[in-house]
């Protein structure tokens, strides 16, 4: 029993790491640009395909492939900012959701055409090694998901907290007009934000791809969970998203393990809806008083 519990906790942490990496970009883009990006999980999907290309086809070492995939997708994220977000920036929220939903459908199906709908395997030098300790097992790749996630979160935290760009990003999030008065170029910051968000999603794709399979549908499968995470954490709230990702990852894992795998997704959404009923701005959200 105890062993099973610990194993489920370990499973939940790995799951939570994936959610966290995708959710971070989504929540940052909302916080800083004010865009609800329904196509965000497609960055995760595309990132995984780029990873497959670099690691499997070009035979690069996995960690190098990971970094390169992040860079490639960072460029893609910037393109998305220019082509999709900027035109939508002043649109009503509902139109933003519909517009980016359209982009998501477009990207998924474009990936189907380009990469075929079949799932692809993503073997790496770490995929077959695993550790076993007191009856609890974890593969090296999974361990790496968790560790790299922690490293990336720490890195992101460093960037946001201590670098000039990070401070500018926070400034834009907290008060856009004042940020402009400081001489901060909002367009440049939004490009950087999109690049970082896309790179994190790509990291998730490249890290998780070897554990599972890579397919055009993988983003669709993740998006509702990721949104649940972002909302639970309070939209735009970076630490909130990290906490929420691990909470939902653990909840899902423990529900499947100890209640019923039939209802693990039901539990996710029940948690979400219950939290929203009690705290409409999410667990860690800041409620705002509307100015009249």
């Amino acid at each position, binding site marked *: 029993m105890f062993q099973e519990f610990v194993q489920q906790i370990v499973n939940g942490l790995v799951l939570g790491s994936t959610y966290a990496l995708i959710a971070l970009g989504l929540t940052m883009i909302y916080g800083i640009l004010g865009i609800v990006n329904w196509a965000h999980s497609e960055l995760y999907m595309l990132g995984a395909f780029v990873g497959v290309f670099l690691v499997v086809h070009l035979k690069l070492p996995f960690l190098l492939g990971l970094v390169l995939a992040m860079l490639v997708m960072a460029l893609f994220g910037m393109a998305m900012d220019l082509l999709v977000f900027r035109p939508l920036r002043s649109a009503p*929220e*509902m139109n933003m959701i519909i517009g980016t*939903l359209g982009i998501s459908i477009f990207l998924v199906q474009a990936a189907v055409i380009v990469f075929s709908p079949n799932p692809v395997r993503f073997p790496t030098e770490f995929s077959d090694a695993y550790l076993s300790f007191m009856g609890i097992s974890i593969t090296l790749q999974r361990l790496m998901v968790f560790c790299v996630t922690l490293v990336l979160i720490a890195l992101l935290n460093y960037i946001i907290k201590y670098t000039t760009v990070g401070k500018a990003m926070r400034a834009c999030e907290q008060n856009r007009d004042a940020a402009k008065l400081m001489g901060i170029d909002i367009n440049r910051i939004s490009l950087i934000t999109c690049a970082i968000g896309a790179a994190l999603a790509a990291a998730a794709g490249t890290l998780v791809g070897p554990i599972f399979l890579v397919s055009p549908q993988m983003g669709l499968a993740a998006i509702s969970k990721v949104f649940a995470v972002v909302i639970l954490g309070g939209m735009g709230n970076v630490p909130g998203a990290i906490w929420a990702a691990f909470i939902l990852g653990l909840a899902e894992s423990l529900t499947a393990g100890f209640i019923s795998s039939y209802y693990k997704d039901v539990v996710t959404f029940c948690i979400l809806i219950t939290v929203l009923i009690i705290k409409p701005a999410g667990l860690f959200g800041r409620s705002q008083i509307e100015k009249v």
Partner: protein
Amino acid sequence: MKQWMNLKTLVIIVAILFAVAFPQMGFKMYYVHIGVLSLLHILLALGLNLVAGYAGQLSLAQAAFFGIGAYVSALLMLNLKWSFWLAAPLGALAAGLVAVGIGLPTLRLKGPYFVISTMGFGEIVRLVFLNWESVTRGPNGLPGIPAPDPISLGFVTLTFESRVENYYLILTVLLVVLVLYYNLVHSRIGRALRAIRNDYIATQVMGIHVAFYRILAFGVGAALSGLTGALYAGYIRFISPDTFTIGESINILIMMVIGGMGTISGPIIGAIFITYLLETMRVFAEYRLVIYGLLMFLVILYMPHGIAGMLKKLSLRVRAGKKEA
């Protein structure tokens, strides 16, 4: 102004005449089937339009309400041997009541929070259809749903087995719904909903109980979807959870957006357009969604009022041009 009204009336009359005559025009039965699908899609898009188009709250739970209506009415017919004519309204009512129940806590949520809640709810409903096997038979679905019972009018008995019969049944329902929908939208309720979408604080100050009207729109929209579900079950005669997915909700959304939200003609145009396009583009199945996705983005960017809005603008321009000349 008057001329415009006349033109509008003329278009409506022609449209109705065409809709009534359509099955008799010698098209192959397949096109009648497409006609039935269009009618069902119009009803679904109208339901969503009430919530999203008028009240300004994007719901991704419409397929769930569609499913609740279908399942409730089908189960009543199958297990309790109820007549379709009783089961269908009950299916609609069930969907409406569930919507009120879910709407009470969630409708005060804003933008993305509401969208995700409805999406989560839609997923929960689908999982319940899938896993509550003792009632829904789970993934196997419910086969053998009876057709609507015949109605005897004395001199003639109406049956609802064939495509054409179903077409007329659903068309009749649609026309009745449209009249009531028109009333609703052009009454103080419709005005209140549009006001809420524009500015809910100002709306409150007009003495309008915002929460009540939001729930009303959500409930009526859901009931309409539920009724459509019952009609769908009576036509296809088989339902399974795969029909009532988020993907279907998104389909309904695409129809409403491309047609034009916040109008009556929008969902009608959009539903017909997309249903027809879906069928004709079967050949390029892989490319269909690429085009849809892009279309959705471009439409929301360049013509947020959809085809209906575009037509209206165009006709206004033409008239303005005439006036100048």
